[in-house]
């Protein structure tokens, strides 16, 4: 008898937790009771509710257009991905789509496996288009091809899928121009010559590898002959590992002048290490202004760094998805379309044989403008 009561209570609390998870983020109190049901609901409560109601509202809101549009980010718990999602959602709403037509998914971890699971779920929901910030260039190909065979429009943004898996790619900034910009920063901070190192994320991250390759290419030019790239270290976008790798770089190369970290976690970890040690090594790379505000300054560890606006990446991802679904574009090079208030964009050839749309050049965060940007993202 007692057991029965207990199991009923457990079941009730489980349902309670699920409702709380779907309904509103503020009702966290119920969640700890139900052990294994809660985790799935941890992110963005609206996304759980969306697929269930998807069928009905989609037919009613004829004004804005039909279909459901999904965004799959790299992983949960990273402010950068949140901003990207916010931009996507904002642009979709600006085009008149309703909440139930927008699905945003943050996988549990930054792996291809997690994204494959997520994409399979989206295929089952029969969405119209999926925009993916790929965790692995090639591993997602089978699942993307399966989605494409069912008429789902697949694009990548931020981090690219391989050319065969995507219709087009929303590139935050051209790979070449990022390589050029970062190399110029490295050269400037090193004073023209000397040793420098790269602190990257994982060794498989497609965007990281493309930028590193672009930097190496730029470095072959005569202007950069005095610079010596001593090591490319991988911090796996884990804080502790990035710190260990940074400290190892400082120990192994006493003459190091500059560290370039083209990843938001890496640059922050490196900044902390350099500041703690009072090191003379300078830091630049790609970082989130809010996280780096403490370290950016003329005499500080990071004189300046770059990033693009992740909100714009998300926005353009939304406009591109809609244009593809509406048949305005097919993803071939040379096509043009208008992305709402962002203006006109042209699809161009990408270096990997596919096509891409470039959002704009990277933006420099300097001691002068960091205070206004740190509260934005």
């Amino acid at each position, binding site marked *: 008898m007692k057991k029965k009561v207990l199991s009923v209570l457990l079941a009730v609390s489980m349902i309670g937790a699920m409702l709380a998870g779907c309904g509103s*983020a503020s009702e*966290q109190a119920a*969640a*700890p009771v139900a*052990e*294994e049901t*809660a*985790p799935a*609901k*941890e*992110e963005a409560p609206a996304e759980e509710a969306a697929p269930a109601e998807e069928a009905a509202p989609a037919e009613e809101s004829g004004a804005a257009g039909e279909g459901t549009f999904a965004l799959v980010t790299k*992983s*949960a*718990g*990273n*402010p950068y991905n*949140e901003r990207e999602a916010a931009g996507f959602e904002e642009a979709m709403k600006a085009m008149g789509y309703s909440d139930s037509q927008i699905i945003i998914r*943050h996988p549990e*971890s930054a792996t291809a496996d997690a994204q494959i699971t997520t994409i399979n779920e989206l295929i089952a929901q029969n969405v119209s288009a999926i925009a993916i910030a790929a965790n692995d260039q090639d591993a997602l190909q089978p699942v993307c091809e399966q989605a494409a065979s069912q008429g789902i429009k697949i694009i990548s943004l931020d981090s690219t899928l391989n050319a065969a898996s995507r219709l087009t790619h929303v590139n935050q900034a051209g790979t070449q121009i990022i390589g050029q910009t970062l190399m110029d920063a490295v050269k400037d901070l090193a004073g023209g010559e000397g040793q420098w190192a790269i602190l990257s994320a994982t*060794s498989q991250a497609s965007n990281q590898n493309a930028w590193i390759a672009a930097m190496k290419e730029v470095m072959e030019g005569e202007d950069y002959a005095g610079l010596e790239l001593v090591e490319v*270290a*991988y911090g796996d976008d*884990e*804080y*502790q590992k990035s*710190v*260990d*790798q940074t*400290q*190892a770089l400082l*120990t*192994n190369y006493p003459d190091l002048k500059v560290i370039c970290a083209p990843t938001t976690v890496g640059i*922050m*970890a490196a*900044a*902390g290490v350099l500041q*703690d040690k009072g090191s003379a090594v300078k830091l630049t790379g790609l970082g989130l202004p*809010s*996280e780096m*505000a*403490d*370290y950016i300054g003329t005499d500080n560890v990071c004189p300046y760094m770059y990033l693009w606006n992740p909100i714009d990446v998300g926005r353009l991802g939304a406009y591109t998805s809609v244009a593809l679904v509406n048949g305005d574009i097919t993803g071939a090079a040379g096509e043009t379309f208008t992305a709402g208030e962002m203006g006109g964009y042209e699809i161009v050839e990408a270096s990997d044989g596919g096509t891409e749309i470039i959002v704009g050049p990277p933006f420099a965060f300097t001691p002068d403008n960091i205070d206004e940007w*740190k509260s934005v993202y």
Partner: protein
Amino acid sequence: MEKKKFDWKKITGSREMSLVIVLIVLCLFVQIRNSSFLTSETLEDMFRNYAVIFILALGMMCVLLTGGIDISIGSTLAFSGMAAGLVMRDYMIPTPVSFLLSMAIGAGLGLVVGMIITKGKVPPIVCTLGFMNIYRGLTYLIAKSQWVAAYQFTDSFKNFALTKYLGFGLVNNMIAVTIYCYIIFFVVMKWTTIGRRVYAVGSNVEAAAVSGINIGHVKIGVYTLMGFLCGLGGALWTSLYKSAQGDMATGIEMDVIAACVVGGVSLTGGRGSVVGVFLGSLTIAIIGKALPLIGVSQFWQSAIKGLIILVAVILNVLAQRTMDKNNLRRREM
């Protein structure tokens, strides 16, 4: 003369000694490859960066001693560190308050885990697997998937990990906290009834129950303690890295459990020592700190890490077996 010889044998045959030898070999090897390893600066960095693992390993040892396991520690650490970080961001509380808050939250989370394991009769690995996800999810929820950034912490909090006032000016605060924890645990586990009860529960539950130990209380106690240390770890972590992230300390449970196992703590309970845990944690710390210094590719580093752990555990087991055999032989005579 007789006596001296006996002592020598006892020392070389002990489990701790086999680990010390592995560590010495490891350190020498790294030192040959890179002479900057055994310098005070590198070693201080190492103890500072791995203070959290050292401290968590103590709590994990107690959990393992009772025959349990706790894989929710990374999430507990993240939740308490994040919660304290958010309060600091919004209300600029003093550093000690932030630490106490984090520890209190951690202890609370640990208490919930302990209650469910004990009262609900749920296997520890299943229960903590659930809570690993629950607490991680709640961490993202309370933080709204944001990070607490360096400029949002008070200076005194950020300087905690850089200054030495708790270590009487000799050692860094992070290291001082670690040392205090180890002294307290060493004394409590060896010479107090509380410590002996934990061992008793893990060695033989029935015997412990018959002797009047409240098994439930001991178990709830160790999980609460584990949570408390996670709370402490959360505060130390955020202070050290000057940032609270939702995904911080993901996977740390594996390093902590590895530290315990390498240090000779039995996964079936009842066996393990504070000294062993210290050496086990030291092994993990040296591996993490030294491998980037020896100049091999990172893919090799992961493989080497696994290999060293395996070798350390095998040597440990062999030493234990020799010790048991010797004990048995002595009894026969």
